[in-house]
């Protein structure tokens, strides 16, 4: 196979106020014609900057200081290049990005799709307009021809009604459809090389699997090469033929998919593979983070109020039949209030979180898991149902408490947020952030608070000397640790973790997961762990509840759920998780063509029949499934 793109010893510098930063420091790789190459690395490894350099869309502060990017487009004869310069390869590193020649390559021979389908398209223009624009720029065709080609492309990327999609605006589309529109825009000119910069990271697992399948299918159909940039080794194993591992701006290892996964030689890559949670982990097996955190619990935090000695052990938290409906007003008449449509965000949800255990709550975005966590925190009042909390033998219904009665209980339930950047006030020092819960609940004097805060810092493995710093001087993983420390300041019994690791790099993710596991046993904590990542939930949780469309569809102990999933949605979720193992590729047929999360598509006995929605049936061993039929019936089918 001939090479389409050769990157040789590429160096990119950023000129920042703090000085020059070498973002890319000698990266070399090649992309063969029609092949798929994955560029893998954590944030800061220079992988996205490399992509930007190839596209000629580097930020103004960046500069290519060395190396070459050789590109040869076999599909096109370039008329804009004068004959004497018509070599086989064009060096994109030396071509000024704003020349006509580079523009004729960009979006035409090489195109790119980005991570964020929400922000990558303009909200003010129809997607048809934005896609067609690429055609009108690079092809000498009329607007109506371009329209037809765009509609054809929209059909190819899987829009159910391409005619109508042409005139749709981005905010009318779901994240998955937006990413499809983005792919249509990148491919409408039939490029020879598609650069996919984390194309599926921001999407739910089932959507991610569909997008990966789409890219694979289109690649074969359009005969193009794909350079996929990702940090997810599971994605790599499923899509790539060759892998390039970048670390700190240079390539540490490269080879075929097989070489990388079975014969990894560089310590960084080995460490990276060990840091990712996967389903084949033995009981009690620990993730090995690239940098382990040393932490210690102090006497203030270890000293806990004892639980009364009884034989009865009710669950620490029990949610019973909680329902929450949101009403959306529709404008209809001139003066009369419009008819409202209602959405059941949480529909008759019941859960039990055993004391000292971790319940994993799994579901895709929009399934109601965050609403449920807000109801448990009493940040939202449910329309029906109870939230029972065992306050040291005294079981109270949190939904019945008024604001004043809730205050002492708020100390018992704390929250760890998803976004480590947005959840810390940038104008408060770490000391102020950590001591604020103590101040609010009026606990201890200054000396106690200082000691407590110091202890909290040690607890999450941070140096107490950093207490006077502001959040911006910490990395994402360190900030998340500050967030955990803040949640622990009041010595809570229950910690609700809402996607605590989904914004973090894999190596940092392992650190945080290990820390959470250790803290749980050291401090006797109970977790409600919300995540869309099944492998992560598998690593931390004892019991798992699967949520879809506002309902719990399946609850089971961890081993049971992964060994014998019953509900079609659970099965689809499990089959959509990409394994970092080339021998276990995604089974795209199990995805139900993306309809797995649509309750209407579930087969009998899981569907909503004339008798109404199915209720949870007990399959034994604490395994509950939302189905009409008894376990025997299901097995007989």
């Amino acid at each position, binding site marked *: 196979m001939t090479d389409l793109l050769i990157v040789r010893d590429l160096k990119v510098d950023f000129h920042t106020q703090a000085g020059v930063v070498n973002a890319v420091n000698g990266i070399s790789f090649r992309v063969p014609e029609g092949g798929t190459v994955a560029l893998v690395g954590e944030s800061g490894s220079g992988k996205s900057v490399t992509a930007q350099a190839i596209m000629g869309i580097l930020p103004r502060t960046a500069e290519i200081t060395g190396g070459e990017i050789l590109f040869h487009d076999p599909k096109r004869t370039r008329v804009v290049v004068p004959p004497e310069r018509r070599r086989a390869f064009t060096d994109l590193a030396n071509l000024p990005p704003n020349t006509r020649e580079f523009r004729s390559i960009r*979006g*035409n021979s090489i195109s790119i799709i980005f991570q964020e389908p929400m*922000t990558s398209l303009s909200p003010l223009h129809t997607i048809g307009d934005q896609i067609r624009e690429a055609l009108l720029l690079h092809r000498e065709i009329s607007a109506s021809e371009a329209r037809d080609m765009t509609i054809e492309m929209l059909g190819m990327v899987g829009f159910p009604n391409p005619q109508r999609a042409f005139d749709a*605006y981005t905010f009318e589309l779901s994240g998955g459809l937006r990413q499809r529109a983005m792919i249509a825009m990148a491919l409408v000119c039939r490029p020879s090389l598609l650069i996919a910069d984390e194309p599926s990271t921001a999407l739910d697992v089932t959507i991610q699997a569909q997008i990966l399948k789409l890219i694979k299918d289109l690649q074969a159909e359009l005969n193009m090469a794909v350079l996929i940039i990702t940090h997810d080794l599971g994605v790599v194993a499923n899509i790539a033929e060759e892998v390039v591992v970048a670390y700190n701006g240079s390539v540490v290892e490269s080879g075929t998919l097989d070489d990388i996964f079975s014969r990894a030689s560089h310590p960084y890559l080995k460490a990276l593979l060990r840091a990712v949670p996967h389903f084949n982990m033995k009981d009690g097996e620990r993730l090995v983070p690239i940098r382990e955190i040393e932490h210690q619990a102090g006497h203030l935090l270890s000293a806990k109020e004892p639980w009364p000695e009884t034989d009865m052990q009710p669950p620490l938290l029990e949610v019973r039949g909680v329902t929450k409906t949101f009403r959306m007003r529709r404008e*209809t*008449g001139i003066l009369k209030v419009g008819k409202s449509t209602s959405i059941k965000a949480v529909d008759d949800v019941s859960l039990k979180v055993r004391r000292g255990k971790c319940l994993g709550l799994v579901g895709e975005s929009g399934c109601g898991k965050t609403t449920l966590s807000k109801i448990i925190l009493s940040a939202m009042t449910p329309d029906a149902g109870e939230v029972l909390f065992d306050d040291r033998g005294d079981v109270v219904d949190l939904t019945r408490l008024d604001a004043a009665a809730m205050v002492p209980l708020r100390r018992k339930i704390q929250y760890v947020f998803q976004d480590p950047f947005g959840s810390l006030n940038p104008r408060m020092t770490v000391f102020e952030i950590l001591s604020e819960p103590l101040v609010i609940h009026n606990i201890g004097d200054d000396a106690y608070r200082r000691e407590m805060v110091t202890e909290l810092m040690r607890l999450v493995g941070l140096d107490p000397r950093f207490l006077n710093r502001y959040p911006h001087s910490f990395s994402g993983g360190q900030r998340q640790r500050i967030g955990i420390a803040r949640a622990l300041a009041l010595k809570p019994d229950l910690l609700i973790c809402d996607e605590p690791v989904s914004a973090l790099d894999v190596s940092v993710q392992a650190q945080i997961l290990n820390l959470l596991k250790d803290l749980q046993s050291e401090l006797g904590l109970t977790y409600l762990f919300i995540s869309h990542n099944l492998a992560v939930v598998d690593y931390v949780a004892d019991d798992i509840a699967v949520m879809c469309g506002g309902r719990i569809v399946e609850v089971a102990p961890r081993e049971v759920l992964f060994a014998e999933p019953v509900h079609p949605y659970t099965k689809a979720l499990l089959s959509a998780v990409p394994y970092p193992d080339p021998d276990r590729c995604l089974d795209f047929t199990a995805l139900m063509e993306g309809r797995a999360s649509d309750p209407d598509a579930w087969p009998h006995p899981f569907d909503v029949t004339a008798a109404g929605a199915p209720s949870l049936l007990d399959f034994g061993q604490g395994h509950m499934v939302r189905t009409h039929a008894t376990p025997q019936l299901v097995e007989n089918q």
Partner: protein
Amino acid sequence: MSNYFVRRLLTMMGTLLVISVLVFVIVQLPPGDFLSNQIAELQSQGEMVPTEKIEFLRKEYGLDKPVHEQYLRWVIGLVQGDMGYSFEHNLPASEVIGDRLFMTILLNFGTILFIYMVAFPIGVYSATHQYSWGDHGLTFLGFLGLATPNFLLALILMYLSHRWFGTDIGRMMAEQYLDQPWSMDKALSVLFHMWVPVFVIGTSGTAGMIRRLRANLLDELQKQYVVTGRAKGLPPGRLLVKYPLRMAINPFVADIGNLLPQVVSGSVIVSFVMGLPTTGPVFLDALLSQDFYLAGSFLMFLAALTVMGMFVSDLLLVALDPRIRMGGRLRK
């Protein structure tokens, strides 16, 4: 859409009704009325005012009626297009204002045009060439314009032009055309005189506008969809106009509502300093002398313009921004 239109019109009427009550109360708030002010002034000059005449005037203007009747009379008049009678000028209020309205609108329309024509290119340049020497220089000039009081600039310009050119640049036209019927020469004279107040009033507006446009555009330029446009191979100019500039313009469209009353009320202080025949000084006089119908009606006129302006800008936003247009029928 038509529902939206009708509902907006109805809320506009309600808003105006509330404003009319407020205007009435506020203008009537100081003790006394126009007549008692006049009488006090005459008495202080040692003149005797016959009681019968006062009583006659009070009846004539309806000042002896209870407050709510006075209010109703005024509002009903307004609805019928009657702005009431100016005590001070002895003319219907509409005539007092109407005379100056044309000049005011001409002047301020020119000013707005000036602001947009100067501020837009500079704002766009500043944002696309952030932290360049050009950006720093223009920003400095902009701040200078923002910091200089308009009347001071007017005084300086008048002084300089008198000193160097020996001409008077005050007023809206050369002296010989005052109170003359319109002619070609008069129109030319107006145009010639107009650019000085346009420049004086426009500088601060220009500076503010440059800053806002620069900030808005800088925000938009960092957005991912701009990178997408570049990755598509769009030339920089076309990219700028089609995506980020279009997004950055929204706040300015939303601002039209504030613009209309500004156009009409005129810049009072500059008008005083330069002797411009705009509505500003008349309005100030009317407030001082409690010339109720003139002040109140003028305020109502401004309020109506503001509400209308808001309506226009909302309609424009609906036309420009699909997110607002289709917000009601979001599909997930």
